[in-house]
Every structure is written in structure tokens, then in C-alpha cells.
């Protein structure tokens, strides 16, 4: 039986997959970060969500 947190994360990633705002690579990276055993820092999430390339004008 999955824990409440596991159930929430499952639903959360399902919702993210349905959006256009995040690409699959970012979602995968976020999944691996949030499901890891280590303590997650907000700065790590920020780094994941920031664009690495120059955006179009």
C-alpha cells in the first residue's frame, strides 16, 4: 500500500505530464529529485525549473 505522500506524488506527476509548461526531461528530473531519499533543497528545484537556454524574444 503506497503511503499518502507516494499517492500524492503519483497524482502530482500525472498532472504535470498533462501540462505544456514542463517538458518530459524536467518532469523526470523533478521526479527523481522528489523521490530520492535525501533531503531536497528549494534551490535544487529552482535550478531544475530555470531555463538553461536563451529564450526567444
Amino acid at each position, binding site marked *: 500500500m503506497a503511503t*499518502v505522500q507516494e499517492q*500524492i506524488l503519483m497524482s*502530482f506527476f500525472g498532472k*504535470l505530464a498533462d501540462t505544456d509548461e*514542463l517538458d518530459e526531461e524536467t518532469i523526470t528530473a523533478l521526479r527523481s529529485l522528489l523521490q530520492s531519499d535525501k*533531503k531536497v533543497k528549494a534551490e535544487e*528545484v529552482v535550478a531544475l525549473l530555470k531555463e538553461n537556454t536563451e529564450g526567444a*524574444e
Partner: protein
Amino acid sequence: MIKIESITIREFRGIRDLTVNPTRKNFVISGPNGSGKSGVVDAIQFGLTGDISRLSGKGTAGISVLRHGPHVDKRDDPEAAEVSLTLYVPGITEKAVLTRNARSPKNFTLTPDTPKLRAALEEISLHPELTLSRREIIKYILVEAGERSKEIQALLKLDDVGQTRAILQTAKNKLSTTQSSAQRELSNAADALRRHLDVKKLSKEDILAVVNPSRKALGLATIEDLTSDTLLNAGVLESGAQPVFNKQSALRDLNALSELLPDSAELGRSQTFALQKDIAALESDPALLQVVTRRAFVERGLSLVDGPVCPLCDSEWDDLEHLKRHLQTKLAKSKEAEAIQDRLLTNAGQLASHARTIVSLLNPVLVLAKADGPSGFAEELTAWSAALQDLASHLGSVEEIVARKESLTSGWVGVPPSTAEAIATLEGVVKAKPDQSGTVAAQTFLTLAQDRLNSWRTARRAEKRATRDAARGQKVYSAYCEAMEEQLQSLYAAVESDFSTFYREINADDEGAFKAKLEPSEGKLDLKVAFYDKGMFPPAAYHSEGHLDGMGVCLYLALMKRLLGERFTFAVLDDVVMSVDQGHRKQFCALLKKHFAKTQFIITTHDKVWAKQMQTEHLVDSNGGIVFHSWSVQTGPVFERLGDVWHQIDEDLVKNDVNAAAGRLRRHLEYVSAELADSLGAKPSFRGDFSYELGDLLPPVIGRHGELLREAAKTAQGWKDKDAEERVEALKKERLDALDKYGGESWVINKAVHFNEWENFSKPELQAVVDAFRTLLGLFWCPKCESWLYVTPRKGQPESLRCRCATVNLNLKGK
């Protein structure tokens, strides 16, 4: 999860040496208060987790497992305090022996020691709620909604849920802050470009309308469209290393800074006023200042706690719970500090934004001052610009804000005293310069326009990126909140439904329509329950204490069902069932059997009748329990195992221990007479204090049994049921024989029953009494299903006298 086969306790808490064998089944530990029951509960908890919750909650400062786990006579020898549990892990069908001693509570030996068994043990250590005491059930029911929310969230292991939400919220806020900063940079860049072009708005048409005349003046091609890579100065010759000077643009830059000066004292006034007020409040209360400045530090520390060692200072605590509570208390005290912190950061952020705007006005003037400013003016502007940038970049935390308090006054802008005069002088110098030729003016205009357009484009790209990042942060945060809300709503709905079902099943006779409502809201969890058909109310509004206890147990069971599902194989109910009233105990037993058949419950109670009822209701086996009679520091608990009372009495007599045998028999008779008086509906003389003694109960029980047999005989005759007549006759004969034997010993039985002279018996006298009672009680006992006879229904006219398996089943309902 696990089940317990046996528990061996040595020199731990109040117990010297004790082994109990629950054999993976439900087990009841009964005895009066202070007889040592809780010592067994403590030992189980210690064995499984290395901790004892009773030694770690509120009011336990200075108490620890190491110092207070061992028996008081062994307090200097914690190694002697040892608990050994033989465990069975259903998920992997393996057994192991787990041993701990109080010297090193967190260490244990496991035999055999396999990864799977260790994993099962680790899971157990994450669930201290498997031991439930009365003070714990109350906290689910009789608490404020905010507290209930905390307790239930802790039980459901929702800490991780909240922590992830907080991390995503912080990330979202950081991205949003970056976006605000990028917007400000864009706004400043746009102002600079607009000022240079001398246009009201930066539309494509307006820009080209001022750029193309200059290009025409230089004989350059008109720009038809403005795209992301259009060069306004395409074709203009480079000016070399010299700064580009355009007279009209320079005058506008000077004018912009000049216009700011008269109002500079007003700029950020409300923010500095608020900042000063909050800083003063902090400085007048050093404790508050300390809490505010340490708040973020403590929050960080709390999120890192994963053991009894403080991650902030490396101090070792007795256990993780004490440490967590210590840090949480620090945070709880800082609610006021949190509000001040928020205000300080908001006002300082706005001030920093003003500072950056001034810097953006000041920098173009600095270029002019270096070339044509009065002596020392460029240096003054450089220092001013540096001071503002330094201030803007050091207002990000409370510590920094407080450290800068001297700068955060109405004069925070720090305009150098001679600035207005110097600007006027510089303006005069610029104006005095000969008008640039049309060619030079057009060249410098286009070159500067391109510089500022580049800055604006860079700022706009950064702003767009930051906006997209912020949108992603917001999306991630809101998706998590949505998922959390949906899952929690569904979880609470399931808990609410189970809770209502369980409570209804226990109280079917008078609250069969009971329902409850759990309403989660931000940081709160309201609980309302139905009170008959009068509406929904807070639990304590109308329900009795007994009912509230029942609710607590039901809510606990509902939560555990959701938390662990099939893995809910073990729980200790430490005196939590004591308030379930007599009329509902059968239903409570039925509830546990029906809904938690795979869960092993270790149940303690100080009510010996209740303990026996659990056996007669087959919640526990006939030998599934232990009765503690008394306790002393020297000996620990004096106890008796259930199920083998006659065997134990025989053993006492073989050892010539008449007193022990007499005491055991008396206690057994006291229990059985109370149980039978209840189950057969005997009518002893009423006692207002309900303190019935053996002599008050046993004769009415014997009499009632005779009445019921006579009634059964009469009914069988009425129905002309020959078989039934024969069965009743056989029972009546058995009764006569037993009573003969009982009557034959009446002189000595009277001494015992009516004059309480148990201790004065000789061994042969007591042996005769034991034999007589054994035979007598055999009349009321079905050896096949190991249950006492009872009449049904319990209320109203009895319709049958029976045992649980119906081996005895006499009809009492006539034609």
C-alpha cells in the same frame, strides 16, 4: 509489519523478570492500577523502537530511557535492563529474536539478522503510534482543530507531504522574486531607452518615427520594420573608444536625475518608516530579535532532523522526539516574529527596488560627469551609485536589514549635498557645447539608441525567461497542492466513513444512525459528530466521556486502516478500552474481530471483568492473557496467567502453598460470579455502590441457573419436545450432583464465601473447596467452545439459555 510471539523482560521499568507469550494472537494484560501492566507496554515499545513514548512527551524533561528505563534498583546498571521479543513477520513469513538493553537503546541484536527482517523492524520504528494510550486517543478528539490536524497529520506521516509543499512553495517564491527583479530591470531599461528616444511609449511605430529621420540625415536606408535583430545604427561609423555623446539625450538624462532630487526625501518614506518601527520593536525585545534572526536557522534545522543529534549544534538529545519538540517550540514562539520578518523583507525589497531605479538614472549622468562634470562630481556619483547598489544587494535577510538600520532612515537615498548644484553646472556645460552638427547628432543618437535598445532587449529576454520560470514554479506548486488536496480529501473521506461505521457498530443500540464529518481546511481539521437526530456538533458538546473514548479508538482504528492497510498487523491498546461501557463491550470485541482479524492487539485494562469478557467474546483465547494482581519494588508484578487457573491452583496445592491457591481461587470466583450474574441475568440484592462481593453474587447465580433449567423443562414440555426434555433432565441431574458436592462442603464454603476466611484453610479443606467449585462452575461452562452460558436476548424475556457453539441451547420461549 510484525506480530509478537513472546516477550521476555528483565530489570526493565517495574518488572524484574517476566515472560509472556502472546503467540501472534490477541493478548490481554489486566490488573489494577500500579500492578505493572504499563511496564509490559513500555517493554514492547522499547523492544521495537528503542524508545518509550511515556518518557518523551510533555512534562518529561530530564527523563530518559537510559536513565529511567532500567528497574530503579538497576539504575546504575542499564545493561541489565533487557527486553527480548520473538517476532514474526507475516509479509515474509520469517521469525526473529530482537534484543535491546537500556545502555544503548538505539542498538539491538537480531537473530537471524537478515535485510528483510531489518527492513520490517525499520518500518516498525517509524510507527510509534502502534502503541496507543488513553492520552493519545484524547488528542484526536478533544483538541482544537489545528492541534487535531497536527496530530492526525503526524499519525498519517504527512510531515513529508507538508515538507515537499514547503520546498515547492519556497522554489516558487524564489522564482517569483527573480521575475519581479527582472521586471524592474526591464522597466529601468525601458525608461532609459524612452528617455533617449524622447518618446512616450516604445511602440514599433514611435521608435521608427524618431530613428528614421536620423538615419535619413545620414543618408542611411529607412528601417521599415523593427524586428528582434534590427540594428538602429546599421551603417553608422563606430565612434571608437570615446563614450558616445548626444547633447539632447544627455540633457534629458540630466533632467531625469535632476527631477528626482527634490522628491528624493519622499522616495521610500513609508518603507523606511515601517522598517524603523519594526527594527525598534526588535531591538526593544532582544528575545524577539533573537527569535526572528534565528527563525530561518531553526526552520532549516528542523527540516534536517533525522536523529537525536541536533543538526545545528551537534548536541545529543535523549531522542529525536525531544529534539524535534524543542525546535518546534522555538518556532511556535515566533508567530509574532514571523509577521515582523515578513514585513521587514517586503519593505526592504521595495526599498531595494527604488535604489536600483536611482542607479539606472545615475549611471548615464556619471558618464557625462566623467567627461565634463565639475571637479570631484564623478567620484561623488561613483560613490553614491556604489552605496545604493550595496544597499540594494544587502537587504535580503533580517540580519542584513537590522545591520543596515542606520542607512534606513528618511535620508536613505543619500544624495550627495552638492549634487543639484553639480548637475546644474554640468547641465550648463552640456548646454554650452555647440550644437552638434546634424551628422554627429544623428550618429550619436542612433548609436546610443542601439546601446539602450540592446540593454532593453537583454532585459526583456531575461524578464521573459524569468516569467516562464515563475510560471513553471507556480504550475509545479499548484499541481502539487491540487494533488495533495485531492488525495487528502479522499483520505479524510475514507477515514470519516470508516470512523462512522466503527462507532455505529459499537453503539448500534442507541446511535445506529451516527455519522461524523471531518472537514480539512488550511492547517485545521474540524471534527463534528451527530448527536442522535439533533444535528452535528463538536464531539465533546454532548457525548459522554465514555463515548468520547470510544470515538478516539474508532478514529484511531480508521486512521491506522488507511495508513497501513494490510500491514496493520500489530497494535498495543494501553488502557484505552476502559471507558467502553459494559453494554457495548461485546460490540467492541465484535468490531475488532470483524474489521481487524489480521491484527494482533495487545490490550491492557485495569478492569478484570472486561479482560475476561474479551475471552468469552473470543477476542482473545482462553490462555491469551495475564492478570497482574499487585506489584512491589522488590518483586515486580505478582501475576497469574489466564486459561490455566485450575492447573495453577493444583500446582499451588502440590507445593503446599495454600494461601496462593486460596487467593487464586477467590479471584477466579469473584470474576466468574460477576460474569455469570451478568450473562444469566441473576438478580442479586441491589447495592447502591455497585460493589458486589462473592457472597452477594454467587447464590443468586446458582438460583438463577435453577430457574432457567426449570423454565427450559416447562418449555420443552409445552412444545412436546422429548429430546429437549431429555437434555434438560440431564443438565438438572448434573446440577443436583454438583450441588450435592457443593452442599456437602457448605460449612467450609460458607467460611470462604460469606466470611472471607480463605487464609485460614488447611490444605485438605481447601482441596475440598476447590473440587466443589470446579464441579459447580462446570455447570455453567461449555468445554467445547470454552465459553460461559448466557441467556439471549440480553434485555427483556429470555428466549434461550445457550453457549456460544450451541452445544448447550435450551429453548425458553413457550407457546
